[in-house]
């Protein structure tokens, strides 16, 4: 190993072993796994109900001597069951990123070890790179467990099984999720290193999280006219899709404002990309992966560039000597 890499690796290994001992990070990871799996399971139960309803209706028609082909057989895509899990990652995965980032910086400041590390022959960028590497690895591993268990549960509950293409889609979503959570790691890590009081940095990170993860999507969601009526306004008015688009076109300005609010949030980019790749959004269900990746590359790169931008910000500023301890 080169001289440059050795300190990075040592700091990363030490941080991973610290995090493994820190029960709170482990608890939140388990919490995320349980939340994601609970959403998946309830989604599967709801889908099983739809299947049973279809089968009952079909049996009734056959018993009446009617042709059951008159109403279309619904198609069930197991990956769509990941919707709840993805939404939990949007919210709790981001919290996990914040907590991991906060712990990575606060533990050094709290134990007064940051000042000690800075007296060693370790360059500041090596220290930061080690911390980032450890954080990204921890988050990827935690999310890896979520997707691995979700894939197993999907295969077991859907009764349809997962193809190689499905697994590839899950792999892409896992990588994207890791970048998404890492961006929140960086937010908390940078603010905890820079702000005078670490606890305030945690609160600041939560305020940013609240704005990006909940408030911006909430406002965008609220302004969507289709969400103002239970079941959807167009569904209730029984307006076909083509006519819906025509009507929506006359509200272009309203829709632009709504969309602008939504795209200011990294969470919405994450949701749009993952919902398309997994076929959760109707228009992408059953569509080939290649064109989806091309169409949604903007959302994907938004997440990547946000993470790279925060990484650049982290390296751009020197640690202040009066920020090396807890307060």
């Amino acid at each position, binding site marked *: 190993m080169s001289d440059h890499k050795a300190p990075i690796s040592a700091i990363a290994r030490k941080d991973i072993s610290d995090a493994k001992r820190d029960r*709170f990070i482990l608890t*939140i990871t388990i*919490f995320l796994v*349980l*939340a994601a799996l*609970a*959403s998946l399971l*309830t*989604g599967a*139960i*709801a889908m*099983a*109900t739809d299947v049973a309803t279809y089968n009952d209706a079909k049996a009734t028609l056959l018993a009446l001597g009617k042709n059951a082909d008159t109403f279309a057989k619904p198609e069930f895509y197991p990956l769509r069951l990941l*919707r*709840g899990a993805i*939404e*939990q990652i*949007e*919210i*709790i995965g981001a*919290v996990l990123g914040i*907590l991991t980032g*906060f*712990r990575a910086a*606060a*533990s050094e400041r*709290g*134990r007064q070890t940051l000042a000690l590390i800075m007296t060693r022959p370790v360059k500041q960028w090596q220290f930061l790179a080690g911390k980032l590497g450890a954080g990204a690895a921890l988050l990827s591993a935690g999310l890896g467990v979520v997707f691995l268990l979700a894939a197993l549960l999907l295969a077991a509950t859907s009764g349809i099984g997962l193809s190689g293409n499905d697994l590839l889609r899950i792999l892409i979503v896992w990588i994207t999720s890791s970048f998404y959570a890492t961006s929140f790691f960086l937010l908390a890590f940078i603010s905890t290193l820079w702000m005078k009081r670490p*606890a*305030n940095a945690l*609160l*600041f990170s*939560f*305020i940013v999280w*609240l*704005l990006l993860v*909940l*408030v911006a*999507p*909430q406002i965008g*969601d*609220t*302004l969507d*006219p289709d*969400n*103002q*009526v*239970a079941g959807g*306004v*167009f569904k*209730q*008015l*029984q*307006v076909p899709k083509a*006519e819906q688009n025509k*009507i929506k076109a006359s*509200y272009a300005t309203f829709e632009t404002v709504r969309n602008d609010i939504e795209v200011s949030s990294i969470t919405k980019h994450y*949701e749009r990309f993952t919902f398309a790749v997994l076929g959760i959004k109707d228009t992408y269900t059953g569509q080939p992966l290649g064109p989806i990746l091309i169409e949604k590359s903007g959302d994907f790169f938004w997440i990547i560039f946000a993470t790279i931008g925060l990484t650049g910000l982290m390296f751009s500023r020197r640690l202040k000597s009066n920020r090396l301890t*807890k*307060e």
Partner: protein
Amino acid sequence: MHSFPRSAPLIIAGQSVLYIFRERTVAMLSALFVVLVLISAYLGWSATSTVNAIYADAAVYLKGIGQTVPANPVLDISPLSLLRNMSIYVSLIGALAAIVIGYQLIASDRKSGVVPILGTRPMTKLAYARGKIAALATLLAALMAVAAVISVSTFLLLPQFTLSAHGWLKLFGFFGLSYAYMAMFGLVALATAAQSRSESVGLLLPVTLWLTVTFILPSLTSNIHPTAAINPISALAPAPDTPFFHWTGYLVGPFSIAESFKYLSAGLLDFLPPGAVARSAISPLADLAIAFAAAAGLATLALCRMDMTRGDYNV
């Protein structure tokens, strides 16, 4: 020897309230809550107006193809329902602001090292607890009062707004309910900040509780995903009609206090869907009352058992 004034809880409460006013993070979160309350009425009005306009366009199309035009889904909508977003902002930002206020009320004392000094004064722990709870109640009342004044003022500026005496009563009932809901989380934060060894755990325990009741329990009881939980209408969608959701709704429902709050809020703000029924083993109002009493008991117990010999948190 000078005896400690009898109004020790008042002194503690007054000093704590003044301290919180200096806290920038609390100010930021409270300001965010107030700003969202400000735009809440506008959002409701704007979205409803758009649905009305869409209905007019759809009616023209449906008449054109000779189909029956269904009733306007937002016709005869109660003006109160324009404030429906408030129920979401209270359950998201209001609850989080209450957690931060509750946490800071205790953490500030522990971090500044005054807890062991307070322990040397002729003051009971109950007086300290009463002072801190009174400070929390005052701060949240101030936040809620500002929110109420802003939302009512904004509302009065919007066109076509008239409200009967009964409507005003329901509106103030909603503010009272929101206050109790926020206070519940603030009380839990008081307790965890007093008893936890680690500073971050003291804050994160109530946050985890809030995440659980807001985003996880609704998916167990009603298959409501987190993005639906942040929409006042989608959050009230009926649960799938299966034995699993009947049972989880009945058994897990009493713990799903965010759902109880949203259900009661929808009733008070007139946007409860027709035929909506609470499926929990306990009625939503009783559920929130029990949860509030439990949080108050927990906070009192935690503060009365607080170790006055220990100051700052561990890492």
